[in-house]
């Protein structure tokens, strides 16, 4: 597989945040490095002890603050260094994944998976696939403005009028 570099193909890097457990996936990323498996450069890895430490809200915080994609990786089920952390993580992350669409944030921008410390090639594959996916989606839309009455806010009001007019939940009030 040929790894791509964000800048060369898309003109610029996108902001991809990775949360990796120390024992498996961070090690897997190390293994990929030791094996010189080339990967796209967009990903920035934040090391945590266990996928069970990853609060889904970290992912929300990243997406709200400006991340274009968030990738979480932990030990395979049954292999957690702390025995159970990835089981809790799986439940929490799965709910987040299912919840995201209602917010309008593309659920494709968040993925969670399992990579062991020995799976360097798999890590390369995951990073490449996910980075390509985010580049296909492009930069994420941002929640903006709302504080004070600046020009941006004025523009949004105009937009808002259009959107608000289409607001379905309040149309239902006329049931």
């Amino acid at each position, binding site marked *: 597989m040929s790894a791509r570099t964000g800048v060369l193909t898309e003109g610029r890097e996108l902001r991809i945040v990775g949360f990796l457990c120390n024992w498996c996936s961070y090690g897997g990323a190390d293994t990929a490095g030791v094996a010189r498996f080339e990967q796209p450069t967009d990903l920035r890895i934040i090391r945590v002890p266990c996928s069970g430490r990853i609060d889904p809200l970290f992912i929300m915080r990243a997406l709200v603050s400006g991340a274009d994609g968030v990738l979480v990786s932990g030990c395979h089920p049954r292999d957690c260094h702390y025995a159970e952390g990835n089981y809790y993580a799986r439940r929490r992350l799965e709910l987040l994944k299912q919840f995201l669409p209602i917010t309008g944030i593309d659920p494709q921008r968040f993925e969670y998976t399992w990579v062991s410390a020995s799976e360097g090639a798999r890590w390369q594959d995951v990073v490449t696939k996910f980075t390509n996916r985010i580049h296909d989606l492009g930069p994420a839309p941002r929640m903006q403005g709302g*504080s*004070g*009455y600046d020009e941006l*806010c*004025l523009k949004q*009001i*105009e937009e*808002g*009028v259009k959107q*608000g007019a289409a*607001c379905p939940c*309040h149309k239902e*009030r006329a049931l």
Partner: protein
Amino acid sequence: MEAKFISHDDTTGWLDALSEQHVVLAPMWDNTVVTFRPHVKGRTPVLDRMPVLPPKEGVFPQNEMLLKYKYDKDPENLDRTSVQVKETLPQDTAVVVGARPCGTRGMTVFDRVYNCEKIRDPYYVGRRENTLFVTVACTRIESTCFCHDVGSHPADAEASDVLLVPVAGGYVAEPVTERGNALLDSPFFAPAGERSAEAAEVKEKNRAKLPAAHDYTGCGEKLMDRFNDLAFWEEQSAKCISCGACTYLCPTCYCFNITDESVGLTGKRLRTWDNCMSFQFTLEGSGHNPRPTKAHRLRNRVNHKFAYYPDLHGGAIACCGCGRCIKSCPVSVDIRAIVRAAQTYTPKPAPEGGDER
């Protein structure tokens, strides 16, 4: 200064023209509620009802950046860091259109605190002096209205620059200040003529809709009598859920919080509305909180408005009687009832077998 007339159809055009020179805040339908929003050309303001949020936003915004800062490091000498600070004093002139007399009058409560001999808050004053209020006389008396109890009435022009009085086909615009008068110098207005008399009738009619005013005279002392009676305040606050709907919607609540929000070497100093119903209000750095329970905090809110503030400001009650706190309270806590309870308080007979307290 003479009263003028503007037709309903011309109101939007007038605001369009005003918004060429000023930021115009007017009540708008924001999805399902009416709030003050910057006027967008061509959009008809909603002048026939009380906006959910108070007009204080125009002068005292919920989020106000006081200053921006940036640290500069000298790459040759990293021990040396300088900081640049940019004050962000308000520059715009603004017109707040469509507040009710109660909401506009709320600004007088602010003025005594932020623009007085002792303190001139530059941010507040900067906005206040550049903001005009075009108020609409009230025609819709709700069950939560009590402006007349606190010394006002539905056509009160205090703190307004222009008072619009709804009449058939439009509004009679009564200038209150010179600057207000200047706003009416516009082709959208015609002399009011006979409509002035109709306006007077409208005012009188709506004043009459209100029941007899409750007398709050002396309520401050009565409230202070109950200051140490925590049981009283626990009873009054039992159903309070300690949210901030009452304070954030209040046209007279002026407490704020200041926080620095940093990103890397840059940041901004923010002034945001605070809420005395919250545990974090007056929570001290040590972890101690002099107002640990909602009873303490509700006591503070009621007393502030009806006892402490009047005590400091010549008897002026820090409440404009708009009733937003009652109407928007998720559990219908009624501040009128609490003050009355203090006014009419009679000690319960001690139960047989001794005094509990």
